[in-house]
């Protein structure tokens, strides 16, 4: 899946030979999460290698989104360990109230970005302002630097002429591409995609998927919660099937999508593919 082209600003993956290739980008151990009395994640273990592209599939309510959100510290966890780039990020021992954050928590969190289904962009700012806000305020880039980078990224996602436009003037697909570009502007090492194409009209899905595919080819570590089975089959290194808060089955796309071992995976796929 991966190819090593010349280094580009959006290319954040490491060369296959560097030690970082061995250190997993994200490690989740024994993650439990419930909302009030509803258990959403039951003791989930998941490792994402650097440069790996993961497609997370499963019926709605199976905990896919919560898994991403908890890994990004957008939700608190009930218990478990999350390691980012080989070091502790968030840890909570079972039965304790205390959530321990690892060293360099903020920097570690900054390695990861997320694109939501809706409202990821700031509607009161132009696209270029959306792309430069973070780099300027958080990464401390100069205005010139941030603008140059943002323009390059907009060309990259095919929105060269949209820099001074507001999100409400864009199509859903263009908005999602701009949102991806904004995360890239933050020099992320890993991106979560939380059903980014689910709210789009069918004809707009492909333009977003092709941007994601392009990222995958350039070595970005990605976790994509998706209902697009074609994307999972063609672009993912590994497919994870979740149901009722647990990972039921995972493996290469050919195996999970075409010859699933588990009954629940088979049932789900037979519903989705028709």
């Amino acid at each position: 899946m991966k190819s090593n082209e010349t280094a580009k600003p959006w290319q954040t993956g490491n060369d296959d030979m560097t030690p970082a290739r061995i250190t997993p980008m994200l490690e989740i151990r024994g993650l439990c999460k419930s909302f009030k009395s509803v258990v959403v994640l039951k003791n989930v273990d998941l490792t994402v290698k650097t440069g790996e592209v993961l497609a997370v599939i499963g019926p709605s309510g199976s905990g896919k989104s919560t898994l991403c959100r908890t890994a990004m510290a957008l939700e608190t966890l009930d218990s478990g360990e999350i390691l980012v780039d080989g070091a502790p990020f968030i840890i909570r021992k079972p039965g304790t109230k205390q959530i321990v954050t690892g060293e360099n928590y903020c920097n570690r969190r900054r390695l990861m970005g997320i694109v939501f289904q809706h409202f990821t962009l700031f509607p009161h700012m132009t696209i270029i302002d959306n792309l430069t806000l973070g780099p300027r305020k958080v990464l401390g880039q100069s205005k010139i630097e941030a603008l140059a980078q943002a323009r390059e990224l907009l060309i990259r996602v095919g929105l060269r002429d949209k820099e001074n436009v507001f999100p409400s003037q864009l199509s859903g697909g263009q908005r999602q591409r701009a949102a991806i570009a904004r995360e890239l502007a933050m020099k992320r090492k890993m991106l979560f995609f939380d059903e980014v194409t689910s709210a789009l009209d069918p004809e707009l899905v492909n333009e977003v998927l092709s941007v994601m595919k392009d990222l995958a080819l350039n070595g970005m570590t990605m976790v994509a919660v998706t209902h697009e089975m074609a994307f999972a089959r063609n672009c993912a290194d590994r497919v994870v099937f979740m149901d009722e808060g647990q990972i039921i089955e995972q493996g290469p796309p050919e195996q999970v999508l075409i010859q699933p071992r588990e009954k629940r995976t088979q049932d789900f796929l037979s519903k989705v593919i028709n």
Partner: protein
Amino acid sequence: MVTRTSRLTLHNLRYLLLLLPAAGLAGCSSSGSPTYVWHFNVVSSYLPLLFEGLRLTLILTLVVVSVGMFLGIFIAAGRMTKFWPVRYLVTGYIELMRGTPTLVQLVWAYYGLSILLGIELSGLIAVGIALTLNVAAFFAEAFRSGIQSIPKEQFESADVLGLGYLNRMRYVIVPQAFRNVLPVLISLSISLFKDTSLVSTVGVADLMYNGRIVATSTYRPLEILTTVAVIYFLIAFPFTLVMRRLEIRLSHHLT
């Protein structure tokens, strides 16, 4: 384009219909049986006094609106904090301000403080404080609803972007919330502008107070108070128009 302009004119003309009741009232005097002869010429010699009152009314409104809006931001923050003692206290304060008559609040501030606590404040200061505290509660509720109407993804995106709390508020949340509530803020300010007339009851010489003085001394309350009402209206009305425009523009913008 042409049709649009003409429609706008018609639209604006419609507001003149609002004046019909007043015109009808005036018309009654000539045709109806109880003959009342209007003497609006009485007004002219007292206009300077009315304008002097108007000056105070405008200054009071301006000060109360700006201080109230500023306080409202912090009250809204207190209303939304996770720290429950502050939240309960602030909620109680807001409900007290919303649920009791403004006139009574003015009386508390003016007489209550001096009688019960021995704090002597000049009438203007006392009512200024009371009105500010009152309107701040309303502004706070407007800000809160404005902030709570913003999708949670906006908070999360700003958070994920790495912005700290203050930057999140400053660059992402407050600009959006402010746009959403601008019409409400203007509407509250217009209400306050008229509500300042309550200060006349505790002897502060605003437009209404001066109007009442003139009305009693000339025995022409109808003419004088109608003039006072027209002055209030002429100032409030343009703001109402601005508010409508903003509401229309906002509904077209931001999805």
